[in-house]
């Protein structure tokens, strides 16, 4: 690995990145840009974001710390962190190819073969090869280990049958990281799972867009009907699927830091609700003159600040001695539930105008708050529901017994 840079080197780099992003971060394109990679709805959005990711990559601010032989910049990760920080500072659009550079890339760099690294890494950085993820199935939303999509070896190929769901960019991706069942034998349901880096253009793979609660699009369901993929798409050995999938999920949770950089979602600016409240009226008076609303607002501010402090504290060893993993493991639960409650609360400021929805010209902030509330469920449900998060915290942090 590259040597640790000096403070001066980092400062130089930051100045350079700052100049680049100030110059190159795109202005409002005149259409709505997705706030997360799960919300890409139109071709226009897709092409815009592909071009942006490619530009950032070519400028060296994405994959800066990945090995040069596969298309990375070969620099110390501290440089990438700085580049990402600057990208956020200028509020640039998100990096589209999240499953690629956030999940598949780190995984392939960690445990992939030399061929796999050569074949996949560069294309995902440049957004030439978009990736998607095929873990969840319609009948097994929370229970990944029970995946039933069948992969049967037939000569040099695997034949796939079944369905995957909640696949962001599934209709635009070139590759999918795929969890499939190669066997029903074995001591438990996990033992029969295998992991594939599967091409999405194989015949027999079809996708259907899913309309979300918000009325917008972003996910697809994928149908596999005697779809054939080359046998070398198998990652590791048959039966390794569960371990590899779990490893992949760790990247999502940010446990591993070998990331390409960039960010895949814009977090809701929780303090924006305060601004909304500040501008709202009720009964002819400023809403924030209403002590009841003010009281709830303060309660939220305390909560928001707590989560910010938690994020600082989790990196301070002496302040998390008793349960070192506690803050990390509760973060998703606490944050997503807070956002759900806060965005729900934001609707109550709007008086009759709370009746408007996204795209009505009279909607407050063009319906941003309604969309945010309804979208908040994607986070309290996706990536392990809040109910499952509570089990995780209960079992892994508090040591409570697993339910039977």
């Amino acid at each position: 690995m590259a040597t640790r840079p000096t403070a001066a080197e980092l400062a130089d780099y930051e100045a350079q990145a700052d100049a680049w992003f100030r110059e190159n971060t795109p202005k409002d394109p005149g259409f709505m840009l997705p706030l997360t990679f799960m919300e890409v709805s139109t071709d226009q959005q897709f092409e815009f974001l592909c071009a942006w990711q490619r530009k950032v990559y070519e400028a060296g601010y994405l994959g800066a710390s990945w090995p040069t032989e596969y298309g990375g910049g070969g620099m110390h990760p501290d440089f990438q962190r700085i580049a990402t920080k600057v990208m956020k500072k200028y509020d640039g659009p998100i990096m589209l190819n999240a499953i690629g550079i956030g999940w598949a890339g780190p995984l392939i760099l960690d445990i992939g073969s030399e061929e796999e690294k050569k074949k996949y890494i560069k294309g995902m950085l440049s957004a030439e090869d978009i990736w998607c993820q095929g873990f969840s199935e319609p009948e097994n939303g929370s229970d990944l280990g029970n995946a039933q999509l069948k992969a049967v070896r037939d000569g040099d190929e695997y034949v796939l049958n079944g369905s995957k769901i909640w696949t962001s960019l599934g209709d635009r991706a070139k590759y999918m990281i795929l969890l499939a069942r190669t066997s029903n034998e074995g001591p438990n349901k996990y033992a029969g799972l295998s992991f594939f880096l599967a091409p999405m253009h194989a015949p027999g793979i079809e996708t259907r867009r899913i309309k979300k609660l918000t009325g917008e699009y972003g996910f697809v369901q994928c149908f596999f009907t005697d779809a054939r993929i080359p046998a070398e798409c198998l990652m590791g050995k048959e039966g390794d699927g569960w371990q590899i999938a779990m490893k992949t999920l760790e990247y999502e949770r940010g446990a591993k830091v070998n990331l390409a950089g960039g960010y895949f979602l814009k977090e809701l600016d929780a303090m924006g609700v305060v601004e909304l409240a500040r501008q709202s009226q009720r009964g002819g008076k400023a809403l924030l003159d209403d002590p009841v609303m003010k009281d709830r607002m303060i309660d939220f501010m305390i909560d928001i600040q707590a989560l910010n402090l938690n994020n600082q504290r989790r990196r301070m060893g002496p302040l998390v001695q008793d349960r070192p993993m506690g803050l990390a493991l509760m973060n998703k639960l606490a944050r997503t539930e807070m956002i759900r409650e806060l965005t729900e609360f934001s609707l109550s400021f709007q008086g009759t105008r709370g009746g408007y929805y996204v795209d009505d010209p009279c909607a407050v902030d063009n319906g941003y708050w309604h969309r945010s509330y309804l979208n908040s469920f994607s986070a309290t449900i996706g990536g392990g529901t809040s109910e499952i998060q509570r089990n995780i915290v209960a079992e892994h942090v508090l040591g409570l017994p697993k339910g039977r």
Partner: protein
Amino acid sequence: MAFSEENLANHLGGLGYSEEQIELMDVATSFCRDKSPIDKVRKLMADERGYDAQVWQEIAELGWLGIAIPEAHGGVGLSMAEVAPIAEQMGRRLLTTPFATCTVAAQALLAAGDEVQCGEWLPRIVAGEIATLALSEPHGDWTLSHVEATAKPNGDGYALSGTKQFVAYAKDAALVIATVNVDGAVRLALIEQSAIPDGALRREIIVDETRRTYELTLDGITIPASALLDAGRSATALGQIELASALLQAAEMCGGTQSAIDYTVEYLKTRKQFGKLIGEYQALKHPITNAYVAYEKARSHMLSAAHNFGQQGVGEIAVRMAKASADKAYSFAADRAVQFHGGFGFTHDCDAGLYRRSAIWHASQFGDAAWHRAKLADLLF
């Protein structure tokens, strides 16, 4: 006011029901179930008008539009108490039509209309012609007396000006009753459809896709002087509009809450994860039970609000309690309905979203729980 726990029930209005109410409840239960299966609801969501004219005709034929209208004006001569159970069943089946707005418009006419005005319009409403209300304005305030739209003397009549929002089913309405400011006093004005210029109505995009509302630009509309309701009874009429609307909303919301719970319970009984019916997990089982408890409380309040409607003092308290508790119950039940359907809950195909959007809609019109609690504080402390 001095309270003890028992006289809360006594002085705040107890519970009771009429035979007619129960009969109407029974008829409405099967009518709404039969006429509004969920695929029909979804079909109408995509329909421009948003409701089935045939069903609307049947509702008129059943006499439901005249329940709380005196027989002298062609109505049934009962009261709002008998309307509530119908609204409840409509809310339960997401059967949205101009029913509520017509009912409330009739109440407004009864409260402030003269013999001529009532005599002309009430029979037409009973027969199924649509009357609607234009109350909300861009300021977003729930206070109905906060009116910036104006009516200014202009020859024999008045020229209107301003913008009204959320005018339900205005496109199909024979009559729009709008609040306008006449020389600093709020008045109710009757606007016939023929007086509304082309382009004055804009269909709004609202959170509840089962409804239709319009923005109405008043500029350019003139009405005759005889189209203003009695100035002296404006305040009474606004009160009646607010409480009748809130009662019908509370009823619809109770029905919606019931469905959100039933729909979720059904899923919890059939969906398996990790080898178990998900309804076995207390993480889902207990919150949906809490939602059910909240629903029953809200329903008791709603029935009390219907029973005590129009009673001096007691009636207003009961209605506000009903709306406040219905908002709490519906919001919670529908929010959990989305969550407990997991990934499916996050799709537009899942009915949980319909209930959630309906709950948001109802909270946004005529005041949410916090608003009514604040009003109750003024009434009770």
